[in-house]
């Protein structure tokens, strides 16, 4: 299994290619949407490149959860409810949600999807294989 540095390096390469950004912009803390300018179609491109780079299959919604925000149980007044946060934690156990939890406004959810989160996901996937 590749070490953390190798995983980061491959993730970085995938993001540089998918998003046409510079290497030094792809830091562990960088948010895909806010800092790297990713749009919805880019998420599929990123998934394709990660699958190829690591030789794994990433099921739909596994890395970037879907159908969370259109569930009224999880969203109220533009914020994630406790149930929504619980669901998010369950689906993204490798994400650092500490900052988001302080003000779980839906508009800030994109900040959760960081380069570090992707590395965490890949590590957990490779660990389980």
């Amino acid at each position, binding site marked *: 299994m590749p070490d953390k540095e190798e995983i980061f390096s491959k993730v970085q390469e995938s993001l540089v*290619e*998918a998003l*046409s950004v510079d290497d030094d912009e792809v830091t562990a803390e960088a948010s895909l949407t806010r800092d790297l300018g990713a749009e919805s*179609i*880019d998420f*599929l*491109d990123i*998934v*394709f490149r990660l*699958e*190829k780079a690591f030789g794994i299959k990433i099921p*739909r919604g596994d890395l970037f959860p879907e159908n969370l925000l259109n569930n009224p149980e999880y969203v109220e007044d533009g914020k994630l409810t406790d149930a929504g946060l619980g669901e998010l934690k369950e689906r993204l156990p490798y994400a650092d949600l500490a900052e988001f939890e302080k003000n779980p406004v839906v508009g800030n959810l994109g900040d959760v999807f960081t380069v570090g989160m992707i590395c965490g996901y890949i590590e957990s996937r490779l660990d389980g294989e």
Partner: protein
Amino acid sequence: MRWFWIDRITHLEKGKTAGAVKNVTLAEEHLHDHFPGYPVNPQSLMIEGMAQTGGILAGSTVDFRENIILAKITKAVFHRLVRPGDQLRFESELVMTSPEGHRAETTITCDGELIAESSMMFVNLNVGNDVERDRDGVFVFTEGFMQLLHECPGFDLADYPVGDDHV
């Protein structure tokens, strides 16, 4: 059947590769404005040709029964100008594929010389919608495209039957 920037589909291997040709002629009106006295085939139209070749290839994965559209041009590089009299050969390969979308890499050559290369993402608009797989609701692969396909050597619509599973 106007907005066609490939003249003929030369081959199609379902979900894998597709080829097309485009003959650039001085009879194309836009070449006289682009540029006066020095006609050059616009790169934007070659991008469209690559999108059409890759899009047909992506469409073959769903038997042309769902709407698959160009969503992103990740890369497009051009190596030389294209002039009237040039015959462009498009070769497209699906390098990644899933029910939600595809990535196609396409090259254009002229007499064996590399003219352009691109990487494009296509998405399937029908995924996530409960739509019957039927050509009636398809606005991408219209009659014009199907006519182009019918003229492709070896193409047989029977190879793309209703209800066939995705590639």
